[in-house]
């Protein structure tokens, strides 16, 4: 157990150091997210002004989902191309530890993007006093992120081993993530409309926690098969 923890930490550290050297993934994710916001703005306001606060909950998560897809696709491509994955698989490391470390690294990158992007988003689109509801928003984001990276890391592992690689991931990932999107978008919309404390979000939060738990268990049970020999 102690050993597993040390291996886990080392692998997370490896991913973060590798990213810090180039910063290409985080920078492109961030740019993508901001660009998507601008695209949304003009797509929705083509016919004059609309009340954007009705749309912002969903918009925010569409932006994050596609941004996360960008990162998830990258997360294994490096490993595969540079032969790092083969090295990892040869190490006496539990496959599940590999999964957990990869998942954690993806979570760190996604959270970093969100930390930078949410203020921009609020600046662009929100008129509500979100600061008062910040704790609720943060809890929502954390619980939803966990689901996104759990499912995303599992599916990215599968798609990296196929011929079409990054083409396949969105096709597998998006239909599976729709339930999470439904829940988190409706929760976030409540926050942006200033009607949500933690209590009124309880239903959504419970749903998201169950979703996270289900896919964590699934990933735990099947990752050996996903990553291959």
């Amino acid at each position, binding site marked *: 157990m102690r050993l597993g923890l040390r291996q886990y930490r080392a692998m997370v550290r490896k991913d973060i150091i590798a990213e810090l050297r180039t910063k290409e993934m985080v920078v492109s994710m961030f740019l993508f997210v901001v660009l998507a916001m601008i695209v949304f703005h003009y797509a929705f306001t083509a016919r004059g002004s609309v009340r954007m606060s009705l749309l912002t909950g969903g918009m925010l998560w569409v932006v994050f989902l596609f941004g996360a897809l960008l990162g998830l696709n990258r997360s294994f491509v490096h490993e595969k191309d540079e032969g790092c994955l083969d090295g990892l698989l040869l190490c006496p490391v539990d496959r599940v530890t590999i999964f957990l470390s990869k998942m954690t690294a993806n979570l760190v990158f996604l959270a970093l993007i969100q930390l930078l992007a949410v203020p921009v988003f609020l600046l662009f689109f929100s008129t509500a006093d979100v600061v008062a509801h910040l704790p609720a928003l943060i809890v929502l984001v954390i619980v939803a992120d966990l689901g996104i990276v759990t499912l995303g890391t*599992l599916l990215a592992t*599968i798609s990296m*081993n*196929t*011929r*079409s690689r990054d*083409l*396949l991931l969105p*096709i*597998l990932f998006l*239909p*599976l993530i*729709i*339930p*999470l999107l*439904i*829940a988190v978008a*409706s929760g976030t919309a409540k926050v942006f409309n200033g009607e949500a404390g933690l209590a009124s979000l309880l*239903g*959504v939060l419970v*749903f998201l926690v169950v*979703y996270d738990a*289900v*896919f964590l268990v*699934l990933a735990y049970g*099947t990752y050996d*098969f*996903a990553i*291959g020999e």
Partner: protein
Amino acid sequence: MESATSAVAGASRPGIMRIGVTTAVFAAAGALLAIGLLLAFWWAPTDASAMGFSQKIFYYHAPIAETALLSFGIAFVAGILYLRRQDARYDRLGVAAVRLGLLFSGLVMATGMIWGKAAWGVFWAWEPRLTTFLIACLLYAGYFVLRGTVEEESRRATYSALFAIIAFVDVPITFFATRLLPEGLHPVVIRPGSSGMDHRDFIAFMLSMAGMTLLLVGMLRIEIGIEALREELQYLKNRLGR
């Protein structure tokens, strides 16, 4: 089809026996479906609510929906069995089940839209069950994209099994999520406690259900046979190529 099976499979396989069973299953399915529909139209009372006559499609629509879910369930079980035993038979069963589940899901949406037009006045409503089937269709369509992009057989089978498991777990979650949102048009027919149906409705419905399930069983048998033939063909092609 039948002659092709026995010709390629040769005498070593119990081809004739199997075709016999399949034919019997289809005959029973046809008879049950026909009787169920006849009873639905001429014996079961016309629905008292606003839906009236259009409710008759329920005897077709709901059994198809159950069959589609059953088919995905079979793929789920086949997936687990494949991962445990690594036997190609379960892979064939899984593909066949997903393909038929996809077919039946398409039919669910088609009959659902027809009913929707008659009962609600619109072909499409973002209604929990209909939406769940749409998402399931897209999800399981991805299953075939996945299969198409993996060449090595055992890996393809492993990933297919894995994805069939994940997808089947996701379907009820999706349904539940769509229910998180307000508004729903679907009638809740069978509530816990009361069946909500006249006994005549119930008998006609159950006959249709049994017929549709047998239809699935028969089609599965054929699909599995086709899948085996396809593999054999691929094997022969590869041998010729070298």
